């Protein structure tokens, strides 16, 4: 699906993650800021990519600022940002959850 508008979800507080989703240049592009990017960067990206795939998003710029979030938190924030970016906030895609 196509990104309708830029969206932001999450916070910069400890154990949370902030994800900004906007229109891409024909593919999924990540920028990740995290103290644990070396150890967990790939895992964080994989978790977000899984959610993007569930929403059939294959063209997006994903800006991520991680403050040490655990996987379920990352997944929850990713779902929220996708719903917002696709303008689907009032019609949640339950099958993704």
């Amino acid at each position, binding site marked *: 699906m196509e990104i309708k508008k830029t969206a932001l979800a999450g916070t910069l507080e400890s154990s949370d993650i902030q994800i900004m989703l906007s229109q891409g240049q024909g593919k999924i592009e990540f920028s990740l*800021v995290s*103290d644990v990017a070396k150890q967990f960067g790939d895992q964080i990206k994989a978790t977000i990519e899984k959610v993007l795939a569930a929403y059939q998003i294959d063209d997006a710029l994903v*800006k991520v*600022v991680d403050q040490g979030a655990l996987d379920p938190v990352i997944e929850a924030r990713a779902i929220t940002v996708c719903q917002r970016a696709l303008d689907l906030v009032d019609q949640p895609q339950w099958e993704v959850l």
Partner: protein
Amino acid sequence: MTESIQDLSLTIGNNRNHWQDFLRDQGLTDFTDQEISAIDRTVVLVDDQGQWVGTGSVAGQTIKYLAVVNDGTQNAGARFNRLVSELENRLAQAGIFHLFVFTKPQYQSSFEHVGFTTLAKTDWGLILEKGTPDIEAFRRSLPVHAQPGQRVGALVMNANPFTRGHRYLVEQAAQENDLVYLFVVSQDVSLFTAAERLNLVRAGMADLTNVVVARGGDYMVSYLSFPAYFIPGNEETIRYQTALDAELFKQQIARPLGISRRYIGTEPQSPTTNLYNQTLKARLPPEVAVIEVDRVQVSGSNQVISASAVRALIKSGDLDGLADLVPESTGQFIKNHYQDLHERILKG
């Protein structure tokens, strides 16, 4: 211990005084009415005793007056992150996803830790940005990019409005380079609107095929990098701001785009622009040569051609001599919109 975010209205005098006292205690002392009136929203972080432990504000797309109490009871970094996060979420709700911070060098790592990237840095200050569309998107949006080995020049002008003097300056650059970027200041605070200025530059440059006319955006001589260009500032302020503007141009514009020459006109009349030129000459070389071109004069007289002379003609209502100062396209526009422009000038 829980801390909560509260909104603060600075239009209420008591609030404003309390807020200024709080910031003074945190070492922030610079309050001009102009800056305060530009603030769109302010939040404070309050502890469970009702004491303020932090505050932050937003003006347009810029985070301002951010300060937290570092009293050892709670991690000051957590307070900082909470406030930045709150301000970002509020901007996002307002549809703003691209923001800036203008701060002191010692806070660089705090902001980078929450996802900001540094655009320019001097001994005195730095500019960071976060979100999208960012400087990379700006560079990508330029219609033409130089091929390796090409000689590339650049100019930045307000062109309020575009004159024969501007034209002469760009012609020099066009002759001496394979490709020339001509950035037109985007801030909309001049007699001619940003769109009018850009269109007049395009019209006046149409025959020079190696000149790329583009908006300067937030990155060149904007409220962000160089507010004193638009609002009066003292000499020290201008020096600080022009240094950041020059560094931003050098690191984020010239280097990635392969620009090796920046053209400027000599500036006998405006002390601000003159200081700006001096800063460019001090900061850009050796990577970017600064080429200063003498102002052209009206043929047969010693009057230099300048946009302020054109504005003076519009103000006086006497358009004789306009053709000496501006190219055909600008002259036609002024004649067609004379009433409107004249009223704008009188309104100030």
